């Protein structure tokens, strides 16, 4: 399947690409556009103004994604809090990891193109998922 999003990806788009590749569509092909009107007819748009898989009701696109595909895994929702705060910093959630994640991905986007950024962000979100999963099982931060 083809998936389209805005060029110069940051945290929300990188976060959305991760469950697409991991859970929904391992063969996913990503297209990057400058304007919502450039999204090809056969591609699913995400984190693009006016798209279904975008910001809604104060949620970031990653949260919309989890809702739309009914990904109810509580660990994913822990990640969603971090992504939301890294993207919007509106203090809806307490997510101390968020400023760090924001800087890491912003920095990566300065030295890598969008395809590479999404590829590199994959293992980063894998690790974040594993960490939050262990934290949830332990009831404290894992060492």
């Amino acid at each position, binding site marked *: 399947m083809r998936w389209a999003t805005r060029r110069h990806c940051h945290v929300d788009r990188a976060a959305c690409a991760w469950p697409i590749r991991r859970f929904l569509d391992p063969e996913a092909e990503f297209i990057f556009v400058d304007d919502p009107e450039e999204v090809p007819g056969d591609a699913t748009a995400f984190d693009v103004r006016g798209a279904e898989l975008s910001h809604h009701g104060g949620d970031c696109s990653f949260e919309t994604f989890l809702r739309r595909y009914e990904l109810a895994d509580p660990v994913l929702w822990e990640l969603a809090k971090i992504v939301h705060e890294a993207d919007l*910093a509106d203090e809806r959630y307490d997510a101390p990891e968020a400023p760090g994640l924001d800087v890491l991905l912003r920095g990566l986007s300065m030295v890598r193109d969008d395809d590479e950024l999404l590829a590199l962000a994959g293992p980063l979100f894998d690790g974040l998922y594993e960490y939050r999963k262990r934290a949830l099982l332990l009831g404290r931060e894992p060492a």
Partner: protein
Amino acid sequence: MPRPRTTWVLLAYRLPREPSTPRSTLWRKLRRLGAALVLDGLAALPLDARNREQLEWLADEVIEARGEATIWIGELASARQERELAARMAEAVADDYAAVIAEAAAAAADATGQRRRTLARLRRELRRIRARDYFPPPERELAQRAVDELAVLVEEPVG
């Protein structure tokens, strides 16, 4: 030498009078971004990729709340009016910095534990203010110094 001119990203919006929640949510988010309210229904920020994106999401929120919103990119025709707008924005963050300075000074009299908690809170607050500070006033450095001094006080062994 004249200051380089700023390119702005602007959100023009109109929201229904009721319900009032979307309006107060929008105001809170605009304030957090450090946007200047040029007129009722017209908010401005210096143009960069992040500010443009944040205003675009707010425009979508306005539309979802049955309002109207458009995003504009533009320049002020008058250099004087631009200086005044920048000064108004600097003044708003200067007040926020001044509050940090006052709290840091007051914390010097507190017990060590309380002082440590205040330090952590003021550091977070300072980060938040700096994120919306586009035309830094002198208070920025003063606030940083006040918090650094409080940090030294916290690290000092109790004697």
